[in-house]
């Protein structure tokens, strides 16, 4: 197991689980047991649906001090069970409930018995830091309980166990896009479920119908993959199909495992050749340019961003001949840097590392490092504007072979905009 939280932003359990649950369509309710402000970890409005399924006990200081907070939770759960019909209710504790030592689990268990509704205490809130990776894995395990009969008692009902299809795959934590999904289908690989951010409970319930769970990083989903393996769904680590070489590697891995011996030329030869040609053209503009690859600034709980400690897309820039420097946010204590180098080394990354302790130092670091283009978290864009450094936001790269041409165009345009290599 890799040492996590050395490269990425940390979260609290409340923030992490609430964020992921908000994005997940399904018939469930979530109770935040704490002060009203804790409901503000949710995104309100602005195309972020899902908050309507959330409730908050809105504990007042008097209730907390007076030892009445659990009775408020009880009342909230009673109201939910009597007035709504969620399939399951998740309860998230907060710093406040942790501080006053609320035994949330006993109340959730009693409510479940009283009403015959599944009520799940998602223990672990409070001021403890957890890694985004740990939250992502925990969430996937929770959702998997919707699709794996062995764990149905924890959360969702399972309507019936499907036999795993040996030619079917689940895409866990990433969506390679329509083109790749279509190519997989033409090659005889059935995409059973796309379990990316925002996948519905119904999607998760299909989990057991596939033989394979495709993930970008097995370490990111250790618990989930173990649960699934027990139910006959095997893990398969693949490259994120972005850029020509990584897309080659993605298809090679999938086809070798799922349908060995299949001739992929009829489906892939044309797009593959076009992609490699785009790289060959692009490299004329990008070779030798210093690329600042930002790590450790994102807090989006996105498995794609977190996979391989944020390095899942680095091959796009390597194949274009960029000279890579990793721009890592956070403290520069020697122990941390030693751990980070060890982790990166384990992932086969030997690129030089530069650290910025605060976002406000990001632009200066880019300039000091002689960076021509930076691939970074979107909130850093504004800081870069006064400099001559090009900016490409993390997540802007398109997957699949046809994405390669678009990516090359975009990268070259970003360089041109910054006056690099023109």
């Amino acid at each position: 197991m890799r040492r996590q939280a050395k490269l990425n932003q940390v979260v609290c359990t409340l923030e992490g689980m609430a964020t992921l649950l908000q994005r997940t369509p399904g018939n469930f309710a979530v109770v935040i047991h704490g002060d009203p402000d804790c409901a503000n970890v949710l995104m309100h409005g602005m195309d972020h649906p899902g908050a309507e399924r959330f409730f908050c006990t809105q504990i007042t200081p008097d209730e907390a001090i007076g030892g009445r907070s659990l009775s408020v939770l009880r009342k909230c759960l009673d109201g939910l069970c009597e007035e709504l019909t969620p399939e399951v209710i998740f309860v998230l504790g907060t710093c406040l409930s942790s501080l006053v030592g609320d035994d949330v689990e006993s109340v959730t268990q009693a409510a479940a018995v009283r009403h015959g509704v599944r009520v799940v205490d998602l223990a672990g809130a409070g001021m403890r830091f957890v890694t985004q990776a740990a939250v992502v894995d925990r969430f996937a395990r929770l959702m998997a309980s919707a699709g794996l009969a062995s764990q149905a008692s924890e959360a969702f009902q399972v309507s019936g166990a499907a036999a795993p299809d040996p030619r079917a795959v689940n895409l866990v934590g990433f969506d390679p896009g329509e083109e790749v999904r279509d190519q997989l289908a033409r090659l005889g690989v059935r995409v059973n479920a796309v379990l990316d951010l925002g996948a519905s409970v119904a999607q998760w319930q299909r989990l057991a119908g596939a033989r394979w769970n495709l993930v970008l990083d097995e370490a990111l989903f250790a618990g989930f993959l173990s649960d699934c393996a027990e139910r006959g769904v095997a893990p398969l680590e693949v490259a994120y199909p972005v850029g020509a070489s990584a897309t080659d590697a993605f298809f090679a891995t999938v086809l070798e495992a799922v349908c060995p011996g299949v001739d992929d030329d009829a489906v892939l030869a044309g797009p593959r050749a076009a992609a490699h040609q785009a790289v060959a053209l692009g490299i004329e503009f990008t070779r030798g340019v210093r690329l600042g690859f930002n790590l450790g600034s994102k807090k989006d709980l996105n498995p794609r961003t977190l996979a391989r400690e944020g390095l899942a897309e680095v091959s796009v820039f390597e194949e274009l001949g960029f000279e890579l420097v990793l721009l890592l946010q956070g403290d520069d204590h020697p122990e941390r840097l030693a751990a980070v180098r060890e982790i990166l080394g384990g992932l086969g990354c030997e690129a030089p590392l530069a650290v910025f302790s605060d976002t406000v130092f990001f632009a200066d670091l880019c300039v000091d490092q002689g960076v021509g283009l930076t691939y970074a978290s979107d909130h850093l864009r504004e800081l870069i504007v006064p400099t001559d450094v090009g900016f490409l936001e993390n997540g802007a790269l398109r997957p699949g072979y046809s994405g390669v041409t678009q990516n090359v165009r975009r990268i070259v345009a970003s360089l041109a905009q910054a006056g690099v290599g023109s």
Partner: protein
Amino acid sequence: MSTLRRFSLAPVAHTGLFGVFLGVHAVGDALHVLHTGVGCKGKTQRQLVEHDLGREAHPQVGWTELSEEDLIRDVAARLREAVPELQRRRQAAALLVTASAAVELTSTDLAVETQRLEAELGVPVVWLPGVATAADLYAGYGAVVRALVDRVDWGVDWRAGSKDPPVVSLVGNFFHRYEHEQAANLAELRRLVEGLGARLGPTFLAGESFGALQRAHAARLLVRMPYAGLEADDLATLTSRRVCGLGLPLGLRATGVWVRGVGAALGVAPPRVEALVAAREARVAPRLELARRRLGGRRLAILADTPLAAGWVLLSGELGLELPLVVLLDRTLGGEAALRAQVAAAGGEVSPGTRVVETPTLMELRGLAGGIDDPPPFDLVVRPDLSLADTAWAHVATLETGFPAGHKHFVFPLPELGYNGTVALAQRLLDAAGGVY
């Protein structure tokens, strides 16, 4: 009443902690320090990033990231350690410190700690207690306004500076993003003030620097706007200045009231004020009449905070719109009584046929437009971007305004306040009603 009501989220569920962040963001060089656990970071910048395209909010917030161990051992220790480091990095002109409810429950004297930090750092370090449990974001925003007003040296006589033209400062302007409608609003307010022969001084808040706000002592008159966080009398006591409390100058009539109010407080001769109002109205009224021809009789729903709703109620009357529903989204700006009072102060009234709903829950609000397959009971709605996407509200022609607004952004200076704002809003209503943008 439903048991669930108490536990349901409000449509705009942000509390004072976010309101403080919004207020700090509206001061160009201030920093919001969160003395909280790691999860509270997401309650600030992340909530604003899609609303404000004009300025990245991230550099204006810092945090202490308390752990459970910190909470048990010494809650203030992380503050003492983290704030100087934050200030070294950010070089803020002022720091405003808030804590989570859990931290405040420990009853640590953070006021004393922030005073020590102020002495150590040499910049204002302001402790804002109780904001995490404040009922809405406006309470937090008002706390920032109040704290900043309190930092001005009002002992300096306004006569010490240039007396002519007199300086007017606005206190309680709701500046929620660095986009061009905000700049346009300020330009409109400036135009109104200058029309009265005065000069607009620092505005609390409008994106000005902390230093610029400190020069508010030059103001002879303070106009207390609805988001000030303190009443006009309290503001007068605090500042030793003449204060006039006014609603938002939104719509023809409300703008006239605003101009007359400021004019009277400045001692401008009434004939001059009336001439100004008449001239401006003469320009605007024919345009409103054109809009009225198309909009008259249409059914409008208003979902807004109380002062904004009052302005819209008045404007809807001027445009001949029917007003079946007004929903008040705030919890601290006065509710229905204040709405009626503000409308009455401008010589209007809330029609007997208008249903006024105070502080509904999100669940209740989602149902107020009827069933998703039914014909909508409104032709138009004025509202922020709330979690209503899969409800009947989504089928009503929408004019997006207020906070949050994830869809409507301004790269052109289109005002909402003043005479030009009145025409601009009429235009937007026409566009929404016509389904053309």
